[in-house]
C-alpha cells in the first residue's frame, strides 16, 4: 500500500472554487476520494450539500464526468449508467475499458429517502461504489434530523426543548443493513484518516459488484463547532468509538488500525463526553444542567455497538 505522501502524487479531481462551507469535511472527503481514482471514473451524485455546493451552474468542481438527477435515486441512476456502459461495451460502441462508477449521497439521501434505491441496486449487484458522507442531519436544507442523526442531537426537527431533549432515537445501523445485502465490500471511514479512506475507495472500486463506504463527515454549521475543528471532530468520532473503522470483505470483518489501537489498549478509548462537549448540537446535555442520564444512555449504546463490532472483527 502506498504511503500518504505517495497518495499526494495522485491527481485530485475535485477543484477549488466550490461553495461548500469554510471548513466543510465533505470537501476534504471529496478531494481524498478522487485521489483514489486511477481508471476512467464517473460520479453520480444525490441531491445534497456536496451536490448543490459543488455544481452551481455553470461552475462545477468535478473534473470527471458527473451526473445529478435527484435526491433519492442516485443508486438507481448509477445502475442505469453501469447497465448502459455494459451494453455499449458489449456491442462495441465504446472502448473496451472498465469505467469506475462512484455514487455519493448524504445521510438523508442514503439512510432515509434513498434507502430503497440503494437496497435495490445492491441486491441487483451493480458494479459501483456508493459513498455515504454522513454529517448527521439534512444539513443542506437547514439541519433537519435524519435517521442518521445521533441520539440526543439538537436539530431543527428534533429540537432540544424544555421537555424533549433533542432526538429521541439512536442512529440507524445503516452499515449493518448494507452488510446484510451480502455485497463484496463494505467499510467505514473518516476524512481524518486519509490514507485509510483512499485505500478503501480504491479497494471498493476494484471489487466486482457493489461496494459501500460509510464516511463520518462532520458539519460545522449543523453540528456547531469552529470550522477549524471539522477534521478533529471526525477523529474524535473514531477515538470515542462512535465511528469505528473497519471493513467487511465478503462477509469477513477486519478492524482497521486507528480503531485497532483502541481495541488493543482500552485506555485509549475516549468517553463520548469529549465528542459531545465539542459540538453545539449537544450543548443542552450540559446546560443549564448536565444530563448525565442521557449521556450515560448514549455511552451505553456506543459501548454495546463497540463490543459487537470488536466481536465481529475478532479482536
Amino acid at each position, binding site marked *: 500500500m502506498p504511503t500518504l505522501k505517495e497518495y499526494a502524487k495522485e491527481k485530485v479531481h475535485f477543484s477549488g472554487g466550490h461553495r461548500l462551507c469554510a471548513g466543510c469535511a465533505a470537501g476534504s472527503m471529496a478531494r481524498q476520494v478522487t485521489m483514489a481514482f486511477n481508471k476512467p471514473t464517473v460520479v453520480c451524485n444525490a441531491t445534497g450539500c456536496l451536490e448543490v455546493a459543488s455544481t452551481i*451552474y455553470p461552475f462545477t468542481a468535478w473534473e470527471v464526468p458527473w451526473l445529478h438527477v435527484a435526491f433519492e435515486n442516485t443508486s438507481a441512476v448509477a*445502475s442505469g449508467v453501469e*447497465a*448502459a456502459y455494459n451494453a455499449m461495451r458489449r456491442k462495441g460502441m465504446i472502448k473496451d475499458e472498465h469505467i469506475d462508477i462512484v455514487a455519493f449521497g448524504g445521510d438523508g439521501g442514503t439512510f432515509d429517502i434513498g434507502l430503497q*434505491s440503494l437496497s435495490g441496486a445492491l441486491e441487483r449487484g451493480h458494479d459501483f461504489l456508493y459513498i455515504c458522507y454522513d454529517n448527521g442531519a439534512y444539513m443542506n436544507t437547514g439541519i433537519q434530523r435524519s435517521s442518521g442523526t445521533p441520539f440526543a442531537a439538537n436539530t431543527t426537527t428534533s429540537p432540544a426543548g424544555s421537555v424533549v431533549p433533542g432526538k429521541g432515537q439512536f442512529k440507524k445501523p445503516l452499515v449493518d443493513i448494507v452488510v446484510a445485502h451480502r455485497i463484496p465490500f463494505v467499510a467505514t471511514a473518516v476524512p481524518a484518516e486519509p490514507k485509510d479512506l483512499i485505500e478503501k475507495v480504491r479497494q471498493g472500486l476494484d471489487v466486482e459488484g457493489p461496494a459501500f463506504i460509510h464516511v463520518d463527515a462532520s458539519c460545522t454549521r449543523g453540528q456547531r463547532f469552529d470550522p477549524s475543528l471539522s477534521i478533529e471532530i471526525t477523529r474524535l468520532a473514531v477515538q470515542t468509538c462512535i465511528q469505528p473503522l473497519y471493513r467487511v470483505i465478503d462477509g469477513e470483518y477486519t478492524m482497521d488500525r486507528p480503531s485497532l489501537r483502541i481495541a488493543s489498549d482500552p485506555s485509549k478509548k475516549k468517553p463520548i463526553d469529549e465528542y459531545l462537549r465539542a459540538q453545539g448540537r449537544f450543548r443542552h446535555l450540559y446546560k443549564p444542567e448536565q444530563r448525565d442520564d442521557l449521556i450515560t444512555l448514549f455511552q451505553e449504546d456506543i459501548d454495546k455497538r463497540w463490543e459487537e463490532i470488536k466481536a465481529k472483527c475478532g479482536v
Partner: protein
Amino acid sequence: MSKIAVTGDDAIAQAAKLVNPDVVAAYPITPQTIIVERFSDFVADGEVDTEFVCVESEHSAMSACIGASTAGGRVFTSSASAGLMLMYEILQIASSSRTPIVCAIANRAISGPINIHGEQTDQLLFRDSGWISQFAETNQEAYDQTIMAFKIGEHPEVLLPVAVGIDGFILSHAIEGVEPVTRELVSDFLGGERKSILRLDPDNPVSIGLLHLQDYYMEARAQVRDAQQRSKQIIIDTFKDWQKLTGREYNPIESYQMDDAEYAFVTMGSGAGNARTAIDELRANGEKVGLIKVRVYRPWFGNEFSTLTKNIKGIISVERAHSFGSPGGILGQDVKSTLFDSKQTPYMAEYCYGLGGRDCLVKEWTEIYNRSIQGFNEGENLPYFWWGVRE
C-alpha cells in the same frame, strides 16, 4: 408479411425487441405487465442484446433510464397509472436532461379509489413535463409508434423523451392483427448501426444536472421549449419516412370523414374506433360528421388542428380523462385555446367519459352527438359534462 396476433402490450414489446435497446429499466404494473414480461422473455432467450435492469420501483426505473441514456445508451421503459405518479418527479428531469427515453404506457385510471382499467388521465398529467406525448388507437399503431418514437426522440434536434400510450386492457390485453416489420427495416429506419453517443465520457468530461439558480434556470427551460417546437417537423418527417417503408400513413392530427363535415368529434386513443363506427352510422343517416383524432398530444399541432376545423360548426371533444375543478377537459382546453385563435369559432361541447375503463358503446357516441347538436342548434356551447355518471 402476414399479420401476427398480438395484444397491445405484446405489440409494443415486439416493437421494442426490433429496436434492440441497450438498456431497459422497468417495473411491472397492471395493465403494462405483459410488456415487461415479454421483454424479459426476449432477454432470457437471447433475442435482444439488452441490459434488463429489473428495478425495485418505477421511481428507480425512470432514474436508471436517465442514467443509462445520459451514459449514451438507447433506452426503453414502460409504465402506467400509479407507476407514472411515482416516477412523476423524475419524468421532468428526463426531459431537462435531454434523454430520449421511450416509455410505453398502458393508460390506466389513477387511484383513488383504486382501479386498474383504461383511462388517459395518467399520461395527460405529465403533459407539461417536456415529454413528447402520443396515443395509439390500435395495436398496429402502438407497434409502429413505438418504433417511430425512438427516431423522433433521438433526433439531434429533439433529444426528448417520448411517451406512447395505449388504453389499458382495451388495447393492452386485446388481441388484434398486427402487420410486423423486420429487424432490418427497423435498423435502416433508425439510421443503421448506432454510433456511440457517450455523454458521460471519461475522455471528454462534463457535468450534467447542475443547480440552476435564478440567473440561468429560465434559459435551461427555454431549451426544452425550443426542442419541443423543433420536434414538430421531425415528427412529421418521421411519420413520412415510416409511410415510405411500410405504406402506413401517420399524422400528428388524424382525420376521418372530415372533408365535408359540419361537426366533428375530437378524441384520442382507442375511443376513436368507437367514434368512427358511430360516424359511419350517423353518416348513413345523412349527418355530416367527422372525427379528429389527436395522435400527438405534445407538442400540440395547433395549425394542423385549425386547418381541419376551418369550416366546422360544432366540435364535440370527448376524452377518457378528467381534471377536477378545471373549466373543461384536459384535451378540451387545448382544443378551446386553439379555436380561440381561429376566425370563425365553432360551438363546442366537452365530455368526460369512460373513466376507470367504463365502456362507452357506439350507440352512446351517437347519443353524445345528438345531445351536442341539439345544444348547438339552440345556439349554445355545452358545458363540460361527465357522460354516463349516475346521479
